[in-house]
């Protein structure tokens, strides 16, 4: 844990997450960022986006990690960095009991992230939702369609610079 200040005592749950992170760090080295030991949702970032699928599989199957449950996958827009990203909340449910969040980012225009839907089936619909709202592609996704908005909807509603379309099938959209 390189970025931890001396003498700070971490809650036990964060210590567990930190221990799990160290296992990932050992295996993937510079592909992952340093650990952020906040109390609410300790996380790390995947710096080499194309390795996300390997990391995901490793985290699910490694005997000391066993992240068998993806609790949530949310999309995020970072307009300042010209990036889009996802945040995955992972837990080892009923096995090791620890949890961690993983962030993965890609370019804002035409960026893509490898799908995790073969690792956790939960990711399938969550990734479709992230695509629907933010517009990043998930390479290898088995069913890469919009999930909530109509198929022919224009734009991605949760992007910070989203402006609603004037009309949809001849119906006025704005108030």
């Amino acid at each position: 844990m390189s970025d931890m200040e001396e003498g700070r005592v971490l809650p036990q749950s964060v210590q567990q997450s930190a221990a799990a992170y160290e296992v990932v760090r050992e295996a993937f080295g510079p592909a992952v960022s340093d650990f952020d030991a906040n109390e609410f949702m300790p996380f790390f970032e995947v710096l080499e986006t194309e390795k996300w699928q390997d990391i995901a599989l490793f985290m699910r199957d490694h005997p000391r990690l066993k992240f068998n449950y993806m609790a949530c996958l949310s999309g995020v827009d970072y307009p300042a960095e010209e990036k889009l990203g996802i945040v995955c909340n992972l837990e080892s449910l009923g096995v090791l009991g620890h949890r961690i969040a993983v962030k993965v980012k890609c370019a804002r225009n035409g960026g893509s992230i490898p799908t995790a839907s073969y690792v956790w089936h939960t990711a399938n619909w969550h990734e479709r939702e992230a695509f629907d709202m933010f517009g990043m592609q998930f390479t290898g996704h088995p069913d890469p369609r919009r999930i909530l908005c109509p198929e022919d909807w224009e734009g991605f509603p949760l992007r910070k610079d989203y402006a609603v379309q004037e009309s949809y099938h001849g119906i006025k959209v704005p108030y």
Partner: protein
Amino acid sequence: MGLLDASFSKHNVVVTSVDNVLNWARLSSLWPMGFGLACCAIEMMATNASNYDLERFGIFPRSSPRQSDLMIVAGTVTMKMAERVVRLYEQMPEPRYVLSMGSCSNCGGPYWEHGYHVLKGVDRVIPVDVYVPGCPPRPESLIGGLMKIQELIRMEQIGLSRTDALKKLAAKSVDPQQAIERERRAVRA
């Protein structure tokens, strides 16, 4: 209730016009289509259930648009749903009535500004006869709206357009504020 208020004569004969009989029959068996779109639908279901018991007015939900003459748009109409609502409306036989229940279907409700996916009022796609305000309206308000539909039906005549019937209804309506004031004065006196 209109027709039956007049007591029967001793030969059990009631003299009235055809319009009256038809309207009485139609308003005494309004069959709404059983579909709800969001939280307002919960209140609509509560109105249908035993406490508020809509069946005493002959109102009971049908599961097919082809058997219904009233559409209660209860809830948030999304852009995706709007076209389906239109299709359901078109499947209903004439004469048909539309009651818009709750702020969402009246004007977009809480989603009026940031709800990119919400239709800002179901009257953008189908004609609405009665609007019931509220988020959600209480069952009493919904019943009030249904009574308004019944009044509208009572205004109708053979050969009279819906627009004219609505105008007639508006002309006959009383200002509730005055009635409230009157009641208050009576209580104080």
